């Protein structure tokens, strides 16, 4: 569930998110995304507030679905346990894919970047439109 967003930075976040949304939807222009661990636009967004992101996690491959779901849950728990609670909130947890949807600020992003043992990448959670 979405957590509280700091009111004082809301306007700036909105402006940057709009830029990102329009960059991939209405304007449609763009370049192929880089495979950076952290999308560069996230850094810009968290400088002024919170960003909605998708955190991909490192989970050992296994052919057993139950074992994989357990591993994904443990990885999610590990990330959340190491995030400063007031700087991030959970948007969605997934059971079958090693990923978390979060709203984070700069502090949380820095924390995520230190979790190289469990975090594989941080991508912007983009909004898309009907085609």
């Amino acid at each position: 569930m979405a957590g509280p967003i700091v009111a004082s930075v809301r306007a700036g976040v909105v402006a940057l998110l709009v830029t990102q949304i329009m960059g991939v939807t209405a304007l449609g222009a763009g370049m192929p995304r880089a495979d950076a661990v952290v999308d560069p636009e996230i850094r810009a967004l968290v400088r002024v507030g919170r960003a909605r992101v998708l955190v991909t996690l490192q989970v050992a491959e296994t052919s057993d679905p139950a074992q994989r779901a357990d591993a994904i849950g443990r990885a999610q728990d590990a990330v959340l346990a190491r995030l400063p609670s007031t700087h991030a909130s959970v948007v969605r947890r997934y059971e079958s894919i090693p990923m978390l949807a979060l709203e984070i600020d700069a502090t949380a992003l820095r924390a995520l970047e230190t979790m190289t043992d469990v975090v594989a990448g941080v991508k912007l959670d983009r909004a898309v439109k009907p085609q």
Partner: protein
Amino acid sequence: MAPRRRAPFARALLAVLFFLSGVTLWITLPPADSASSVVTPDVRDRALREGRVRVIAELRLPAGSHVPEGLLTAAAQTVQRRDIGAVGRQVLSRLVGRSHRVLHQYSTVPLVALDVGPDALTELEASSLWVRRVVVDSLNAPTLAQSVPLIGGDVAWSRGFDGTGVVVAIVDTGVEATHPFLTGKVVEEACYSSNVSGHSITMCPNGSTQQTGPGSGASCPLSVCWHGTHVAGIAAGNGAGAGVAFSGVAKGAQIMAVQVFSKFTNASDCGGSPPCALAWTSDIIAGLERVYSLRGVRNFSSANLSIGGGSYTAPCDSDPAKPIIDNLRSVGIATAVAAGNNGYTNALSSPGCISSAISVGATTKSDVVASFSNSAPFLSLFAPGVSIYSSVTGGGFGYASGTSMATPHVTGTWGVLKQAAPSASVTQILTALQTTGPLITDSDSGVTKPRIRIDQALGVLVPAVTSITPPQGTAGAAVAVTLAGSGFATGATVSAGAGITVSNVSVVSATQLTATLTIAAGASPGGRDVSVINPGGGTGTLAGGFTVAAAAGVAVTSIAPNQGGQGATVPVTINGSGFAAGATVSLSGAGIGVTNVAVGSATQLTATLSIAGGAALGARNVTVTNSGGTSATLTGGFTVVAPVTVSTVAPNQGAQGASVPVTITGSGFVAGASVSVSGTGVTVSNVLLGSATQITATLGIAAGAALGARDVTVTNAGGGSVTLSGGFTVTSASAATLSLAYNGKLRDRVGQGNTALGADGALDGTLTATLSAPGGRTITGLRLDSSQPGVWDTDGASMYWALGVASSLDGVLLNAAGSMAVNFPVANGASFVLFASDYQGTEFLSGNTLTLTATFSDGTSATTVIVVP
């Protein structure tokens, strides 16, 4: 690489979208011809002929060609809409006082629909400054009715494949489950929608950010939310319940409605026109994961994402949606994603750019790449996406164009193909579509990709069986068959119904395979459906293609010969009925091997029996067993007898030119035994088996047959044989002669009577007879006559007195006691002695005439006459 846009949009087909529950119109504008009149000839002709005509007037915008709004910034959209309105008003002002009626005015496209008379038409023609052209407002058939047949959907339906039993997931703006086109189809629902302060508000019906269960996937409340219902109708709508003559591609499929859009309230987010609906990637992923989590409950074929944004000139496999799309693909669920509507010729939107997604570009019904459609070398497929008429919210229908509309054609196609090939992987179905669809070349980029053809893909995924040769077999038999048809794939298997085991399946080609059908002995007679199952589960069946015939009853009636000697090798013929190829023969007990079994017909077979030397004597049961296990036994049909032997041949000689009946004694003789005599000139006839120890035959001795001893061979019908060396002698045909001499009364060897071989106290007349005959003779009878008169002979049954015979004066009498018979050889020139009782005392007086007749074994005789000195 930067994305490139295709040629100006105005050159291409223009589509006008209405969302009316009633009448809908479809307008196609032909290319303008600057050299000709604004009013096309057909418009002018119809106005003259009918007085009035419905037309579409294309407006000439001051900025030039119309640009699709999706390619414009919000500000540019505003300017273009303002120009459209201004030019429209200008044209309508010129029609004041003319016969006309405004049917539709449009805000986003430079068109006006009018009903005009000749005067208004003249005015329009004079308004070339504002009007580019005026064309007939033609009525068109609903285009799902066109697009579905275009992709072979109707053919697939006729083959029984319409998506029945399959669920397609529509991840979109929600679905109006009560729409008549979709009644009863929505079986799963979910909603994932987000509250993001300043940006989005959840549109889940319960106000939360996620919801599952009935009603959760309902269409969202914004004006654009017709989208999901339109998409769902294309994929799986069914016209039967809606009273329309067209249906979606997988009209038998069920739907999972997943609402993933959020209400965005910010003008910047919406490109200037809030509120709008956009979908967070995180919510899309959640929706897809819900599909994935229900895979064990619902038979999903595909998920539809008519959604996208951005532009990617290469696969975007770092996209966050890839893992869940990969998960779905790993369990056989395809994710069909719109290529995007930016008109790019070298780029796709996200998430359609993900390599494991099935990206879909849009084509027209004329198989031209739609002007708005993105395409790229890594695009998966094209599908119809221009002016597709499908269900919209409110219970009606409407036209829409976009890769959003092309995508559900693919989603529905997957439903149809998964019904036909349930275990086919995403790759197998994609390959089938890519290898069979007509190739469409994007003229702006040269990119060539296949447009889907369901019926053609079915031809690859689903085999058809047209014939089986031979079409029948007998219970218990193994039948090598050849199946003809189409779509046979490597690894295909064959089934042929109850009681038939299939083996040795070999796919010779896509149109031929061979197999062995082994029919159980107990298989019930009748027709069997024969199916070929491709690796993806696509199954082609020839109903009643193979017939199991009742096994003919097996019976054994005789075996010839029916006996054989120990140690013999006996070729036999077995008669009966129901003998089948592959039948075997066995004999009860030990010691008889069977080889060389050959079924000549259903009623006769041959075999060779090898009888061991130590095989037990006696009767054996003969059993014939067909390959299916059916058998029959002739109880005691064959007998093992002792080995054949020959001890005597009687008589054992014959003269040249004579025909000599002989009796052969020995053992082990069997029915059908034959007799042969070595050398030439002696033929055997009238062979008759008297018993296992006696055979009679007639030896025909040629006049020129060589003299001397011959070997006599008896050969049993079973092959056992034995030879009596020198058992028969050919003698000269020249007459034998006898000479006789009276020696006086010298010994008392016989008495008075026809069998009296003992002394009686009176000396017997004693004579010496000498044989003159080349090769000698065997004497089988003697008779002595006296002129006194008196007669003596060697026949005990006659009334004449006994004639004793000895090889010498004092030798043992050669007569058999009782019968008096003689049978003794006499060499050429040899003599023997005769004794005759002088029962009157006058028989041998001097001057009496004595006559001696000898009968030989060859049937000849000789006689000599003397006068007693």
